[in-house]
């Protein structure tokens, strides 16, 4: 475990944390923990309670879902600077995918209950944090749509000539 | 890929309800017919050969619209036996002239033509092939254009996409230097709404196009119909659409009004009165 000041510094270096007010940064850092995980480590499980929100500092994470007959499919990978576990603050607080480290990774994690309590009691903090969370969800949505477009696919169905 | 390596495709030519004119167009390729016969195996073509085949076919050319329950079954079976199904002509692609009965008047008509209408088995609507089965390509026209048929066969053989442009008759008309019968002659010409392929034939004969190739993409029916309505009655505008492709979706609304206006006819002095039934042969 690394000290709390380390959390604040690392948080600032991310997209999520870079423009936070000192107040917001302090309050979040207070409940954040820096962790190193090995490749293969499972950080969240699809369908289970989403007990943490996290920011990837280094490494690579995979968001997977189980599909009957097709095993676990990776829907998307998470790059350093990006977040995971937004379900921690969105009811019903259950993970929408399983988060697995693809490489040895370094993350900041925030305990879900503590984070929710903090956002409930500190409106100023909530006003800063929620738009960032919405951005996370919106980016995922836009990316998903783009994937759905299947841009690189063959352009038309097979024609006989 | 060189063309010579392609095995002779097994071709079938069949008809549903139609006049035979589109399959006749194959026989009208007089200069190429023997060469076609050498390069395609015409395994089923009852109009031209007594040799028959139930398939499978590499290519099936289908003429005519589906007008009877028997044809509806037949086309499903044919589809299963055909790798490629190409509809030829307005009947097959748009229902053709038969489809002008599609607004619920078929039982009456049957009764008017036949003394014993109960013997007639006929669907209430005559419909294009694509309403029943998947169609891989279509040649438009009433009748089809021999050049387009040859292009289709050539494309099939060479493995390329047939060059069948989806554009207004007007382009070909102007390329031929024909003066517009609509603008300069005041004729109601359907050319701007109609897909090309005929060589802008009717304007070349000083009459308006009657849309036998059917609507093109982006056919702006409302605009042209509105323009026509400036100097003719609504029913006269409607009847322009009630031709050989009137059942096509873009034309259907006008055609429906026209056909309804035509009424049922033959009511007062039915031809049927003149007709008798004859249960005994050679009476």
């Amino acid at each position, binding site marked *: 475990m690394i000290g709390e000041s380390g959390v604040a510094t690392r948080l600032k270096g991310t997209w999520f944390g870079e423009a936070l007010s000192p107040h917001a940064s302090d309050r979040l850092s207070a409940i954040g923990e820096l962790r190193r995980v090995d490749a293969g480590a499972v950080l969240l499980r699809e369908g289970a309670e989403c007990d943490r929100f996290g920011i990837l500092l280094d490494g690579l994470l995979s968001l997977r879902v189980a599909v009957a007959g097709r095993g676990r499919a990776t829907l998307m*990978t998470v*790059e350093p600077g990006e977040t995971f576990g937004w379900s921690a603050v969105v009811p019903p607080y259950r993970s929408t995918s399983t988060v697995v480290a693809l490489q040895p990774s370094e993350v900041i994690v925030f305990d879900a209950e503590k984070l929710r309590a903090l956002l409930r009691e500190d409106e100023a903090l909530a006003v800063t944090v929620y738009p960032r969370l919405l951005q996370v969800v919106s980016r995922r949505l836009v990316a998903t749509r783009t*994937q759905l477009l299947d841009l690189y696919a063959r352009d038309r169905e097979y024609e006989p000539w | 890929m060189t063309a010579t390596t392609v095995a002779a495709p097994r071709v079938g030519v069949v008809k549903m309800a139609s006049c035979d004119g589109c399959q006749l167009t194959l026989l009208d390729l007089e200069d190429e017919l023997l*060469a076609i016969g050498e390069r395609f195996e015409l395994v089923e073509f009852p109009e031209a050969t007594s040799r028959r085949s139930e398939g499978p076919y590499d290519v099936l050319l289908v003429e005519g619209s589906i007008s009877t329950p028997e044809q509806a079954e037949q086309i499903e079976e044919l589809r299963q036996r055909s790798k490629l199904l190409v509809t030829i002509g307005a009947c097959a692609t748009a229902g053709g002239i038969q489809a002008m009965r599609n607004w619920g008047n078929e039982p009456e008509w049957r009764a008017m033509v036949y003394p014993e209408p109960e013997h007639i088995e006929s669907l209430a609507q005559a419909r294009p092939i694509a309403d029943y089965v998947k169609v891989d390509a279509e040649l438009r026209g009433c009748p089809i254009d021999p050049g387009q048929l040859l292009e289709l066969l050539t494309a099939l053989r060479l*493995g390329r996409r047939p060059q069948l*442009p989806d554009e207004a008759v*007007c382009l070909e008309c102007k390329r031929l230097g024909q003066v517009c019968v609509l*603008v300069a002659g005041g004729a109601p010409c359907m050319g701007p*709404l109609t897909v090309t392929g005929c060589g802008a034939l009717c304007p070349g004969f000083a009459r308006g196009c009657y849309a036998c190739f059917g609507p093109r993409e982006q056919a702006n029916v409302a605009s042209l119909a509105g323009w026509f309505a400036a100097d003719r009655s609504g029913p006269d505008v409607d009847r322009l659409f009630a031709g050989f492709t009137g059942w096509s979706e873009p034309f259907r609304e006008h055609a429906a009004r026209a056909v309804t206006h035509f009424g049922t006819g033959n009511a007062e002095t039915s031809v049927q009165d003149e007709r008798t039934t004859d249960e005994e042969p050679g009476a």
Partner: protein
Amino acid sequence: MVIAAGNVFLPRARLDALFDLLHEGGRTIIGPTVRDGMLVLDRLERVEDLPIGWRDEQAPGRYRLVRGATERAFDVVNGQMSWKQFTFPPKQKVGMMRRDEAGSVAFAAVPPDPPRLAFLGVRACELAALGIQDRVLAGGTFVDEDYRARRESALVVAVQCGRAGDACFCASMGTGPEVRGGHDLVMSELDAGFVVSAGSPAGERLLARLPGRVASPAEEAEASASVAAVRAAQGDPVVIEGLRDRLMDQLDSPRWEEVADRCLACANCTMVCPTCFCTSTAITSDLDGRVNVAERHWDSCFTAGFAKVAGGNFRPERSDRYRQWLTHKFATWVDQFGTYGCVGCARCITWCPVGIDVREELAAIAPPAAPPEQLLTRPAAATPGRFEVVTLRASQRETADTTSLFLQPTEPALLAGLPGQFVMVEQPGFPSLPISVSRYGTDELVLTVRAAGPATAALIAEAPGAQIGLRGPLGRAWPVDRALGRNVLIVTGGIGLAPLRPVLDAIVASRDRFGEVLLAYGARTPSDRLFTDELERWAQHGIEVAQIVDRAEPGWEGRVGVVTQLLDRRDFGRRPTVAFVCGPERMMQATVTTLRDRGVAPERLFVSMERHMQCGIGLCGHCQMGPYFVCRDGPVFSVGELGELFGKEGL
């Protein structure tokens, strides 16, 4: 117009003498004549073939020939078709392509063989239109040889308008009504005869042999007054001031939709237009594909096929097509050619079946923008219909639907291309294909082709030893020199890596001359990735290779998502970065948005545009996009150059 001294007065009764002079040497006279009640331009044998005593009545969507009050020969202002039908025929064979039994192929362009014509009765607006087509078809790097030959062989006898057509606006467009040049002879029709003057040495020689006398000052004054009256009658219905900018500012005007409710997209306006030059090429083949004839025909931006590519149509709606046409005529034409694409002849108004009046749809003008940089290499076989035959040495399957073809050209120009340029590939019997070069070897050219349709499928199915035709390399290249000493970002998706591979080759060849290099490569699935072995090789040369797929497959432990994810959290603002982006247009749009957010300047952000290309040299019109022809001015553009055009729907 001031008619020069020494003009000749030709009595009406001696007009036959002009016919005799023009007929000399077997020349055919083409001029207005009435056939089956319709005015056409056709062969004239004698004076009586002229539409003597007729005049035209024109209105939007309506044309009628009526008997006039005079017995003049040139009172019909104009008819449906322009002289374009003789200088740029509606259908023209451009090439023959043969493949013999052994598979060897031969290409032959159809050499120009112009008929000897004399055009009689050409109006000022028509002369201007010929001048515009001269510039479009014969005034650039590439020339339509057939057009040039036809123009050079034709004599032009102009006539001053003595009547204003009912919808004419040449005065507004600055093209008439006075004949100002481009003619050999010009005639002004008076009741008693014609005042004739010369506009060229050939015209001087004809004039010297015309019977008649020197025109009197009174006759000259009457001639001048007559054409001045035409100008006055027209007024100034189209205000040209600021037209170009105003039009381009209105790309989102609701009016486009409103016009589209009336527009039939029937293409009549473009067919009758004397300046429209767009064409398509159709190929007719014999049943065995041995003899194939390529015939070019007039096409139009109003047809469905015109802007179609394998994935769909760039201008699907009538509103898109009308906007394309109008902005081209009155705005982007100026950018491309320095003149308007309209001469005010009013044909598009009269011959529109539903009477859409371009005068009503217009606003004004602006100075021409500088044309984009021209290409730097000299291509082989530039003329359509002519191709260099190359032999396929080998082909290599890259993915399930993509194959690399290794071609051996004998023509050195084909090997001297630049990264991002493309070649036009011709297989007898198939339409031409624009294919980017994916590698320039010392003695071979590599094309990486995805089977997107029958022509590409046939191409990649060719066996070693097969011959195909090539023209090129064509188009503008990736400006690799602009990236020297800078960070380089190469963002690509799917087959888009192929045209960028020569850039990577160039970087690898002089790795130390570039800063950090990131290749961000997206693909549909892991097995759809191209050049996987080379991706590793590039990584060994200090290029960061980041790959991402839309859909993972079993065993894939790499990234999943969209290519912009690789860029979202990076900062490119610290050092100058040059970005080269190539992929589906949606992907490029998303990438450009992200990169601009991340600090990459639009001038250093390059994209490769896809449009329907047929000729490859900016003559057929298909690939027009605003002021550009993508084949000639692109396909590589900076985002700065494209401005609002980039990502605009329906262009």
